[in-house]
């Protein structure tokens, strides 16, 4: 599964004089090999890495660009009508209605966006995988509870639920007994709550089919416990689908975060968020197009890149043509 194995194998088979073994790869080796051949997905992955670096080193990026911090309000940057000024050498992306630098806010917005979408995806995937595995493996009432919860969640107007929860939890002491505090954790919790259903359903289906495999019977007849079978036999076979699915959930969650922020149920001001920037920009769009354009482009590019990587991973998992 690691590069070490590949080398070892090549070496081993060389010594054995058995060339056919060189071509033999584990399913995950084949998976990564196919993925590496997908240029679009690789370029998108490059963009995502770049974006993550920008988000992590936002202060450095802003310092290099020479722009003021994201929350620095400078009313001198508004023109004589109190309107923001457009792109210039000092402020390449222009400034917003309060005189804050749009470049800095877009860069810090990447932080918000990635932090929330990745965290929410991790939580939703974790919850979904655990519940999906339990439902698929144990069946019976466990499956009934999980599957019906998934059905109910999918039938829910999740966006309204998210809005309600987000505004409910962003007041004062938060909600769920103070567990969910206003701010980023609220948004993460809301997004995770509405998105765990998809991995749960997917994993349940996969486990149902893996459970039928004779290696599960073999393990049971050797005396393995359910826990051992689930984590040692079944889970390793789910790693690739989990990676693929999580990669497709991230862009959805980026858009969800942007939408929540746009509707005022996202991270509280003044934290920079692409959705909130677009929301603010709507009222002054006629005079300050740049305030909407740059965060808008950022959302589109980011979601697109994640989707392309996700598609590449999906193709690598289910190759249409044999390789």
């Amino acid at each position, binding site marked *: 599964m690691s590069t070490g*194995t590949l080398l*070892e*194998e090549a070496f*081993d088979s060389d010594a054995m004089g058995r060339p056919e*073994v060189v071509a*033999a790869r*584990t*399913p*995950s080796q084949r998976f990564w090999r196919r993925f590496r051949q997908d240029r679009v997905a690789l370029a998108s992955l490059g963009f995502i890495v770049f974006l993550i670096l920008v988000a992590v080193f936002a202060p450095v990026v802003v310092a290099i660009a020479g722009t003021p911090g994201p929350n620095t309000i400078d009313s001198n940057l508004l023109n004589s009508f109190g309107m923001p000024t457009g792109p210039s050498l000092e402020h390449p992306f222009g400034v917003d209605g309060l005189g804050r630098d749009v470049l800095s806010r877009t860069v810090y917005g990447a932080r918000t966006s990635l932090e929330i979408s990745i965290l929410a995806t991790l939580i939703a995937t974790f919850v979904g995988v655990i519940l999906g595995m339990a439902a698929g493996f144990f069946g019976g009432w466990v499956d009934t509870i999980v599957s019906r919860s998934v059905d109910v969640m999918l039938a829910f107007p999740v966006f309204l639920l998210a809005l309600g929860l987000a505004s409910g939890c962003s007041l004062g002491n938060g909600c769920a007994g103070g567990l969910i505090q206003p701010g980023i954790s609220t948004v993460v919790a809301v997004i995770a709550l509405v998105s765990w259903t998809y991995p749960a359903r997917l994993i349940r289906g996969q486990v149902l089919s893996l459970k039928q*495999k*004779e*290696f599960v*019977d*073999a*393990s*049971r*007849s*050797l*005396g*393995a416990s359910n826990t*051992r079978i689930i984590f040692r*036999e079944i889970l*390793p*076979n789910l790693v690739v689908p989990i990676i693929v699915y999580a990669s497709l959930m991230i862009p959805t969650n980026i858009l969800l975060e942007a939408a929540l922020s746009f509707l005022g149920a996202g991270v509280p001001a003044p934290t920079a968020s692409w959705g909130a920037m677009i929301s603010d920009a709507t009222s002054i769009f006629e005079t300050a197009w740049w305030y909407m354009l740059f965060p808008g482009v950022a959302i589109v590019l980011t979601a697109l890149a994640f989707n392309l990587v996700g598609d590449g991973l999906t193709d690598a998992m289910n190759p249409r043509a044999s390789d």
Partner: protein
Amino acid sequence: MSEPLLQVRDLVKHFPITRGVVFQKQIGAVQAVDGVSFDLMRGETLGLVGETGCGKSTTARMIARLMDPTSGEMLFEGQDLAALKGRSLKQARRDIQMVFQDPYSSLNPRKRVGSIIEEPLRIHGLLKEGDARRKRVQELMDRVGLNPEHYNRFPHEFSGGQRQRIGVARAIALEPKLLIADEPVSALDVSIQAQILNLLRDLQRDMGLTMMFIAHDLSVVRHMCDRVAVMYLGKIAELAPNEALYAEPQHPYTEALLAAVPSPEPGRRGQTSQGLAGWFLERQRHWPVVDQLNIHHRAKDSTLCPECFAEGFPEWLRNITWRGRTPAWPVALGCVAVERELAYGENFPLT
């Protein structure tokens, strides 16, 4: 050879057939195993033979406690397997191991062969982790005819026959008393089958194993078993010592199975190629035991005897419908299509 290791009594497994998604309603049951009894003597090899779907795997899976019986007893050294739980069940599992049918699905594709064979030792905490276990794994690999150097490889790097050897190594790692081999060669190339059969027979002899050997045709069992149980629609139709079964089959179904055994000599091909179809034609007197399920099943299962259907399955036999137990098939009478019924005792028209 005299005292029984396993006594199976009135073993029954019914699978409910349900309808409905949320509110499931049972509308019937598949009687997969329907009252099976037999003794398995210490050190013997018992063949369990019957066509696909007659309940062989279900029987094996109940004995290996992969499935709970609907009713019945399975006394292993006097202890009822069905009643075992927890620690005592885990202990009993050491004594009963299984070799599975499909060498592709029976090995986890994500695990290295060494780890697959080591798993039983790990589960039961046998030997010290590390060198001792690896040595044992390599011994086992050597024992089943695999290169011990290959313990670090993944299952997909092996051929079907080698994979089945891995499955055998895993099954004997705990030195079981009873080995159940569920059609261990039916997924393999004919050229490989004999190697695996020989391996199992050698192991049986060297380790003093008691073996239950499952197959869907008698040719495989012939050279393996001391006694053969012929299973038919969830029941044991006939249980006899090997030679007696071949010499004097008591049950018409056993005759059918014998008729399906392809003859190795090319000269006799003509005779056996009538195979099942020929059997149907000649044995109308047995219609009462060959019920609808059987013939329909058989009509679809050309794998049972590929040669029997080399010239195609007779059209009329394919189109048989049933009126109670009476077979009927469409015939053209001039330009009118009618149904022809076969009276009990009447011969099938040989066209």
